[in-house]
């Protein structure tokens, strides 16, 4: 039954790549501010819904997608500037609650501005399934996996080769020291929110042909992405990607070989086990508590 296994692996990889993209968004903001941004799922929704409505207005897909990503980045900036930054003195828990409030607001606005129906984007390169090792794969899955891989490379380059990226890393390691070195923590926060909003929107556009999109699609994707980020180690880029892929594969193999009724339970049990044995996640920073 190698065809069966190949099918489960391919499904898992596709879903896992989606989770990985969402998880990356969580990681970037967490690095810059130690805030877990629960509005991350809403950026995914905004990406998908905005593209659908721009496409409906007659724009070509590529332009609609680019504008949707830009719109999400702007909303991310606004969220950082008008909601998170004014409360920067507050505790992290307060900031997290602010992001939950922002998520509810964005979802409500989406239901008003657009509608409450489910929409589909056309697949970027057709629907004809591709046969791989006795299994089949939708062309859109290749887009998801491929773009995820590209983004991971681009992010690596950004964080290791550019000043802005290094600034974000510096802030994540030691905020005070970074500030003393002349890094604007304010700007880092803004950049990181815009970046992860854009990432989320991109994920939302990529997956819309597979999963469809609607005003409330961000809730579940946000939660799964959060789980993936935790599993991989909060704040770790490679960890987020690994966490996403592992979660996707666990779900698919769990549904395939055990029972689909316990699919989510299996994924979360493994996650709990990992966290008990490795509290920092798979690739998380070994917590070095400063006293």
């Amino acid at each position, binding site marked *: 039954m190698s065809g069966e296994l190949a099918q489960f692996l391919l499904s898992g990889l596709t879903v896992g790549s989606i989770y990985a993209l969402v998880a990356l968004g969580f990681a970037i903001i967490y690095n810059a501010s130690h805030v877990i941004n629960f509005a991350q799922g809403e950026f995914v929704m905004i990406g998908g819904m905005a593209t659908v409505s721009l496409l409906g207005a007659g724009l070509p897909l590529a332009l609609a997608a680019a504008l949707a990503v830009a719109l999400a980045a702007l909303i991310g900036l606004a969220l950082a500037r008008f909601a998170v930054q004014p409360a920067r003195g507050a505790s992290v828990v307060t900031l997290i609650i602010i992001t939950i409030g922002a998520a509810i607001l964005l979802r409500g606005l989406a239901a008003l501005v657009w509608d409450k129906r489910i929409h589909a984007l056309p697949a970027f390169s057709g629907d004809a399934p591709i046969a791989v090792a006795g299994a089949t794969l939708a062309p859109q899955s290749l887009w998801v996996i491929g773009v995820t891989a590209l983004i991971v490379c681009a992010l690596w380059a950004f964080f290791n080769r550019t000043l802005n990226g290094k600034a974000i890393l510096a802030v994540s390691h030691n905020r005070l020291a970074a500030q003393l070195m002349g890094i604007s923590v304010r700007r880092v926060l803004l950049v990181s929110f815009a970046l992860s909003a854009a990432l989320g929107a991109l994920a939302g556009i990529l997956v819309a042909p597979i999963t469809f999109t609607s005003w409330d699609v961000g809730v579940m994707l946000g939660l799964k992405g959060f789980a993936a980020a935790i599993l991989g180690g909060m704040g770790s880029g490679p960890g987020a990607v690994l966490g996403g892929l592992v979660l996707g594969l666990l779900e698919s193999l769990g*549904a395939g070989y055990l029972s689909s009724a316990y699919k989510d339970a299996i994924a979360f049990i493994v996650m709990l086990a990992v966290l008990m044995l490795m509290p920092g996640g798979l690739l998380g920073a070994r917590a070095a508590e400063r006293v």
Partner: protein
Amino acid sequence: MNLRTWFAAALLAATAAVQAQAPIRIGSFLSVTGPAAFLGDPEQKTLELYVERINAAGGVLGRKLELIAYDSGGDAEKARTFAKRLIEQDRVDVIVGGSTTGETMAVVPLVEAAGMPFISLAGAVVIVEPVKKWVFKTPHTDRMACDKIFVDMKARGFSKAALISGSGGFDKSMRAQCLGVAKNHGIAIDADETYGAGDTDMTAQLTKIRNAPGVQAVLNAGFGQGPAIVTKNYKQLGIAQPLYQSHGVASKQFIQLAGDAAEGVRLPAAALLVAETLPDSDPQKKVVVDYKRAYEARFKQDVSTFGGHAYDGLMLAVEAMKKAGSADKARVRDALEQIRGYMGTAGVVNMSAQDHMGLDLTAFRMLEVRKGDWALVQ
């Protein structure tokens, strides 16, 4: 005729004259907002539209209708409060409402105690089984959808089917009903898979179904985007067996979402969806076409079966009042129970003391997606 009879007759005439002034009060509580708004919104619009039309045509028994409707927002607790208000303060003559099963069941004890005829617009079998003296309902049940699908499978010579269902309330209820009635039709359910509410990929479950030996057809009991994803994954995996969907996705939106993958998918649906394509000889055609045109002309949006349930509810209440010759609650109830051969948007209604829904399998039409549109399966 003696003096006493004359006196009684005069009194009757006098009260009738007074009643002629007072409107007949139709009470309603619907989920116009909230998660079940897609049910309550067309229901409310339909009630308003037809109360207006009936009044324009002279009302019922020479009296106007007055609609008193509350928005229960899908909340059973609110539904109870509003039902109480309808019974005690508004003193309505009949209640037509209850978009969801939860709201309906919360109100049942109230109407039973008050002796208020109540026509529910919600789906589940529990509303009319066991029979409750004052409670009726208009929509078909999920069990009937299962029956309809299994009858079609049998007609195509299938005896082994697989089931894949979501985890929502509708999905679970339909799954249980289908598992329950499959045996009656000689269909064995050989695989029973589920998926979660926000799941984005069902290929793992479908691969299992594909590898289950001897499965001849697959039934997806589901609601929302899940069935569209199942349909796409089904096509992607190249599964050759016919796929059946439930009446839960019987809308154009399903075809739009699933695209080409929807070709050949069959599902049971109310005649309203294919109103214009019904043959002219179909006895239901006039009712559904008239309702569809009236609704779409007024509200500029596609008609839905849910609005049709409200139409049926209101018309059954009116029919019962005409039959009873009054709006007296007990007499309206008895008349409701005796309605036979009434043609509504959901099908022919034959009420009885044992059946407070009165629909049979002819209420559902088996549809197949052909060239991106619904086609009737003969």
